[in-house]
């Protein structure tokens, strides 16, 4: 694993180097520090922001929206994906259509969501849901297709009931693909909600970031970027960790 360690060291070195370059560019004035505040200033602003009640409230608002949209999109999308994959005719009819829908940039529908839902909680959740559900449906169909016919025959030959087959064959077969889907869905979900907040909102961290940008508050803006990036990476890594634990048998 010595090479693994070397790889990790190289990764850390790259991140540190990026922050160092950022710091130098700003400190030496190669880039106007008003346009690019230094890394250290940005991080200390981040610390400051996290102390602020208003920022915490914005984070809480965004988190609620993200979690709600996710909690709706994942089960609904998984159910639709499952039904499509289980029915051959359905799968044949619906799959290309899903790909069409998936290829359309979701952001162009945002004005419609504002018209329908107004500016508020349901607009963000609705748009987050809409941004996420297609990838969940498509991933679930892939997951169902990863279940091996041989395994289903084995279960049947030992008298498994449909419920037993679902929990003892389908679920474990699908789990690695589903976890990966969960991870990727969250990226889409987070993007959707924050975009909706930046576009039209009264609260939420996306709204804050947009406002800081408009007011040329670069320190706050960059601190917000670093904050969101850190949160997204943390979630992604958490699911990836679960993934490797659940799919150790995948070779």
């Amino acid at each position, binding site marked *: 694993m010595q090479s693994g360690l070397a790889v990790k060291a190289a990764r850390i070195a790259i991140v540190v180097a990026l922050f160092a370059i950022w710091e130098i560019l700003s400190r030496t004035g190669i880039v106007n520090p008003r346009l690019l505040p230094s890394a250290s200033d940005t991080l200390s602003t981040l610390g400051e922001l996290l102390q602020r009640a208003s920022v915490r409230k914005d984070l809480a608002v965004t988190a609620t929206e993200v979690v709600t949209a996710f909690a709706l999109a994942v089960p609904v999308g998984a159910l639709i994906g499952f039904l499509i994959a289980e029915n051959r005719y359905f799968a044949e009819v619906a799959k290309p259509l899903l790909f069409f829908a998936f290829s359309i940039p979701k952001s162009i529908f945002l004005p419609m969501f504002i018209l329908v839902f107004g500016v508020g909680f349901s607009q963000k959740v609705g748009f987050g849901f809409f941004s996420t559900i297609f990838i969940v449906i498509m991933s679930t169909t892939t997951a169902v297709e990863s279940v*091996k016919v*041989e395994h289903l*025959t*084995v279960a*049947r*030959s*030992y*008298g498994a009931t449909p419920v037993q087959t679902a929990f003892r064959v389908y679920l474990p077969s699908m*789990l690695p693909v589903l976890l990966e889907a969960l991870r990727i869905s969250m990226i889409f979900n987070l993007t959707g909600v924050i975009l909706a907040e930046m576009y039209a909102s009264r609260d939420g961290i996306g709204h804050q970031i947009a406002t800081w940008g408009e007011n040329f508050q670069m320190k706050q803006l960059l601190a917000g970027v670093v904050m969101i990036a850190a949160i997204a990476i943390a979630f992604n890594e958490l699911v990836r960790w679960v993934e490797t634990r659940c799919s150790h*048998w995948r070779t």
Partner: protein
Amino acid sequence: MQPLANITPLKPAGAIEVRNVGQIFKTTTQDVVALEDVSLDVRPGRFVVLVGPSGCGKSTLLMMMAGLRQQTSGTITISGAPIPEPDPNRVGVVFQEASLFPWLTAEENVEFPLALRGVTKSDRRARAQDALKLVGLDGFGKRHPHELSGGMKQRVSIARGLVQDPPVLLMDEPFAALDEQTRMTMGDELLRIWAATGKTVVFVTHSLTEAVYLADEVIVMSPRPGRIVDHLQVPLPRPRTYEMLSGDAFGSLRDRIWRHIRKSA
């Protein structure tokens, strides 16, 4: 009247009776006759091998004996009763390679049929241990399938088929994916397990050598429509040994089967 059923004399456990069985697959363009008028009796404790070219319906016949598929006509009884759906108490099935669940350990795979029926954890574990010991995998229970060799995986499959102690074991080309050496070893192992348990075994294979080496009786089938074209007794003594493979008796039996298969090819 229901009570009449009780008067029917029960066939001994492990007997298989196939009567005038036919199977027709309906496709959109035509009906394909996969099996036609197949009749066969397997006495309890016998080792019977089904051979025949690809598409002769031997695996289909086996799946019908397992209750995994229903015949279009005729009847099949296992231990005296029809088998409209899989019944793990009467029949254990060993499939081709890759039928183990990769997310379960060897012993969890063996316990799977018991877990479906709600057998307690400790009871399950004990019976899985016994089955694994029987197939020569004592001490390998905690490994996952990807940590086992091809031969070991099929041993786990056999243990899974035996764990509920059914009188009949159906095997669908279980060693087809193994290399020649492992295949011979597994044949000997299977014969040892068979002798120790006294199960009725129906074994499907492509290999004529494997057929003669393992069987008490060899059933030769023709390609579509699948029919029985020969039913040979194998008079070679047991235990079977590697030396028998080069003997005259072995050779003439294999030739006889080959002539049937060549004719239909």
